[in-house]
């Protein structure tokens, strides 16, 4: 009986909502060094994104002269002087691995600088908020506008805002296409409706995602969609620089000119400017993207009050703990500030963690550099005929057929002599290939292309070989006489 009663008092499961409704965030305008840095990075990132497809790079005739281009149709990736074939996509993988480790290293040193400054979501959201502010006014004006009926001024300003957002989104989607098509060729085709369905599809896709993510979803992308905030805590430790509120100095917060009150006057400037709508004074939070706008906002207020800046600051948790311990016994006032600040230790950048990240980073860079330097510009593939495995000839000999593919990744057109290393007596013939002065088949290559040949290897009737013999095809550079490329295969015959 009593057990049942307690259970009945519990809230029924259906009464607990599974989703929290979004609290719309109206970030207030702010100025200061962090904001200036963010503008500079924003301009640099956007300029990079929009202008890189326009950079030209002369590669000679019949080749794209765009510096950075992913040529899907012809299966080539161009990056300035680098040209990569589809089978070398691991260079791209390597770059992504580098980016990931770089992100880990930066996070362990400086906290969420990527999130706060350079992430496309942050950059475009910042841009969209700037547009919003330009048309609808600052925080208070925007909040007031949203209270108004959906007519007149409201309609005009909202339409203008969304039109501007869509314009930026379309430019974003349009620029994306230029990384996969020649920008100068594609632009007129795009505007005259001659581009392919794929081009318009991806334009639409990136326009829509930009508009929705930067215009509507905003901080919800960081809080709910992005996996990075979930596991970045593993990169952070007490020595990482993070945006923190120096509670030891600010608390107890309260109205100005009240006795026994800390430096925080509870003006909520830090909350009002926050693009994710949180209160930094609550401590470290998942939602904080580490953009540091609250630092600018608080410094502004502190300067007006004639107090020291840095109530909210980039600070390590280790330094914060030391300050807190030192300042705890002191009463609020300038002495407590001096006491806490004196106890701080500068951020420790050289830590086992950062050494590990730096080491892994260096290792990956070295491996990638090494593989690039030793990259084969000529590859030989040998495909053994499987049907038939071998052919019995009329004189009792045995013949195997192979398809050879020569991939030449350079622009030069060179021929190579083909030599077969294997048991003595095996005879090599390459169909349709001319012979060089020494009687070896001379295989031509195609600049930046693949040539295919059919080779017949014959064992004469008297030669007794095991069922399975290793053979090696060797391409010899006729000028230097050195082996340019070797490839192993097998020669099969009947059971002896």
């Amino acid at each position, binding site marked *: 009986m009593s057990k049942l009663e307690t259970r009945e008092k519990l809230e029924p*499961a259906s009464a607990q909502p599974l989703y929290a409704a979004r609290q719309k965030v109206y970030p207030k305008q702010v100025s200061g060094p962090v904001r200036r840095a963010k503008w500079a990075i924003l301009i640099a990132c956007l300029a990079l994104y929009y202008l890189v497809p326009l950079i030209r790079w002369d590669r000679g005739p019949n080749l794209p002269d765009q510096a950075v281009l992913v040529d899907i149709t012809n299966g080539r990736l161009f990056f300035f002087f680098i040209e990569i074939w589809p089978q070398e996509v691991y260079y791209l993988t390597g770059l992504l691995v580098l980016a990931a480790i770089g992100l880990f290293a930066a996070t362990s040193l400086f906290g969420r600088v990527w999130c706060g400054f350079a992430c496309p979501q942050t950059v475009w959201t910042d841009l969209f908020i700037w547009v919003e502010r330009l048309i609808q006014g600052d925080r208070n004006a925007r909040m007031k506008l949203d209270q108004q009926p959906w007519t007149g001024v409201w309609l005009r300003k909202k339409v203008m805002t969304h039109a501007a957002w869509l314009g930026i989104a379309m430019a974003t989607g349009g620029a994306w296409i230029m990384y996969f098509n020649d920008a100068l060729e594609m632009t007129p085709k795009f505007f005259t409706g001659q581009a392919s369905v794929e081009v318009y599809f991806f334009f639409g896709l990136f326009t829509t995602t930009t508009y929705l993510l930067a215009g509507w979803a905003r901080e919800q992308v960081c809080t709910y969609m992005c996996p990075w905030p979930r596991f970045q805590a593993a990169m952070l430790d007490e020595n990482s620089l993070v945006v923190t509120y120096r509670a030891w100095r600010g608390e107890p917060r309260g109205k100005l000119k009240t006795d026994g009150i800390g430096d925080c006057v509870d003006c909520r400037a830090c909350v009002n400017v926050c693009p994710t709508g949180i209160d930094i004074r609550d401590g470290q939070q998942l939602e904080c993207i580490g953009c540091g706008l609250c630092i600018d906002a608080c410094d502004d207020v502190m300067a007006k009050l004639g107090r020291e800046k840095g109530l909210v600051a980039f600070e390590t948790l280790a330094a914060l703990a030391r300050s807190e311990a030192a300042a705890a016994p002191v009463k609020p006032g300038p002495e407590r500030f001096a006491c806490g600040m004196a106890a701080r230790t500068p951020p420790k950048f050289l830590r086992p963690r950062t050494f590990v990240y730096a080491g892994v980073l260096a290792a990956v860079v070295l491996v990638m550099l090494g593989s690039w330097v030793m990259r084969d510009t000529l590859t030989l593939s040998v495909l053994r005929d*499987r049907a038939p495995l071998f*052919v019995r000839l009329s004189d009792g000999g045995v013949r195997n057929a192979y398809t050879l593919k020569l991939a030449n990744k350079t622009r030069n057109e060179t021929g190579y002599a083909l030599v077969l290393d294997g048991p003595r007596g095996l005879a090599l*013939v390459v169909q349709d290939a001319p012979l060089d002065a020494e009687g070896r088949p001379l295989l031509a290559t195609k600049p930046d292309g693949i040539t295919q040949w059919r080779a017949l290897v014959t064992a004469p009737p008297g030669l007794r070989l095991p069922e399975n013999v290793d053979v090696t095809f060797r391409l010899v550079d006729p000028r230097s006489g050195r082996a340019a490329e070797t490839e192993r295969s097998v020669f099969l015959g009947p059971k002896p």
Partner: protein
Amino acid sequence: MPTKVEKDHITGTDTTGHEWDGLKELNTPLPKWWLYVFYATIAFAVVWMIIYPSLPVFGLRGTSGWVARDQIAPILAEQRARQEPMLARIRAATPAQIVADPELRAFAMVGGRVAFANNCAGCHGAGGQGAPGGFPSLADDSWIWGGSYDAIHKTIAHGVRNTEDSQARASIMPPYGQMLQPAQIADVADFVLSLSGVATGADTAALARGRQVFAENCVACHGAAGKGNQLLGAPDLSDQIWLYGGTKAEVMRQIANPRMGVMPPWGARLDPATINMLTVYVHQLGGGQ
């Protein structure tokens, strides 16, 4: 079935009345919108079945007359139109001319490979390796009716021993089982095998008798040395390749009651360009002559 709906007093939800060991199932029906979408899909399926071909019985084609073939037909026609200029050049050229032109050769090799897989691989194997029972290997260096471009082209176009094409390759090996004594057949089999260097354990007297039988009956087609005659499609008996098996029993059987391969005239089924491409492809399979 309880007549009165019972309420679960903890959650306030109706129960279905089903009870297992004191646990009662709550009645939480599907959301209405879900149910209506489900009904809508059923209605949609009925309409769909009426309009489009849905059941492969009674010739049900749907009221719209829609056929998937109509979708692919213009694409195929477009592909054919794109290939036509190359096919026209291949049709006009001889196989030797095709091989001499790298562009034509590359096209013919691809087209020939496809045509071979579609039409020839059934008997001759995917790689032209042939099959036991008289389907000759096209990958070796032995050619029954000749391995030159012209000979291969003629064999493909007109076929072998068929009744449909008057120009078909034709020859008949008589059934010697009715003309020779079994001992004679054994002797000549020993002799024929000895031409290829196969030891059957026969003594010199038997080989001499075999030689005599061979000279009287076989040289007209297979030649004095057993080298065969490509004009007559008489196989070379002195090489190591045996169409119907190389044991003495198999050779005797072939002498007594010969089997002979038949091939349809592909000129009647494929267009001249395809025959040309097949010629080029088959020629390079085993290195033609």
